């Protein structure tokens, strides 16, 4: 699809908005429907569209496999780290109430941070799986 002008232009127009929507879903998940999981999938959809239109090599120059590998683990570590932070502050594992002075603020911070971890892991794993699948067929 590398030489299809209409596809390339349309994709170029669409991708920023898909990423913007993913970020909206990510950070607005505590007020509206959505959250890290959905946001991660939408974010990866933007990259998959980019890969489909511009080719695997270009996409892997933008975001190489080794970065995706580390990001996937990083997201899980953020999640576990938030849990351990609650533990270190004298509460239970994944108790966010102690992360700030007021329990509600702590809960809010905790939920935002772990949703971010979920989003990072989901997005990078989805992109990674697609890269690996797409990279297999070609010599």
């Amino acid at each position, binding site marked *: 699809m590398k030489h299809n002008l209409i596809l390339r232009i349309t994709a170029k127009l669409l991708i920023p908005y898909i990423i913007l929507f993913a970020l909206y879903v990510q950070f607005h998940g*505590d007020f*509206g429907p959505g959250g890290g999981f959905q946001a991660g999938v939408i974010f990866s959809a933007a990259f998959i569209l980019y890969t489909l239109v511009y080719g695997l090599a270009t996409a892997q120059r933008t975001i190489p496999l080794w970065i995706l590998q580390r990001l996937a683990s990083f997201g*899980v570590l953020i999640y576990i780290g938030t849990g351990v932070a609650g533990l270190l502050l004298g509460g239970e594992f994944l108790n966010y109430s102690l992360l700030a002075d007021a329990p509600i603020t702590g809960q809010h911070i905790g939920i935002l941070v*772990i949703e971010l971890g979920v989003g990072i892991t989901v997005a990078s794993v989805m992109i990674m799986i697609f890269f690996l699948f797409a990279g*297999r067929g070609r010599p």
Partner: protein
Amino acid sequence: MIDLLIDITLLAFLLVTAIAIIRIHSLFAIVMLFGIFSLSSAGLFVVMDAADVAFTEAAVGAGISTVLMLATLALTRQHDEKRTAKHLPILPLLVVLVTGAALIYGTLDIPAFGDPDAPAQQHVAPHYLNRAVEETGVPNIVTAVLASYRGFDTLGEVTVIFTAGVGVFLLLARRSKKERERGTHRET
């Protein structure tokens, strides 16, 4: 009334798609029909006011899985083998009928949709519904339950996704690297 109409329409779509998936032999068409099936289910979830579930179903079921299955198709065959039945499928039909009858019999006891007296709504749900905003300050109770009350479960889910990624990486990454080396070798 309008909800009922939408429900019937979407369920009819689901039925038609499911039958088409069974009958069709082109794997490409089946993958597309799977996407339509997921989208219809997402519509059903919206009618049931489960916006978060609908969102996930539309994004994962209709979006990512379709792309991944297409990517898999690109590596494998486009058609499955046409099988002709050598005998009358009486035993499978019997099993299907008995199982279906048992399931329908089971639905007779299920509480009505959204019934507040249903056992599932009696355990921790009242606490979440009454106290979630107060305790977490998050208006979307689904997020409050997912990320805070049931944070440990969600950690498990993230770990499952991470493990899936690691598994695919271990299975496919080394091979594709070898192939890439071969490719560069041929170019030089």
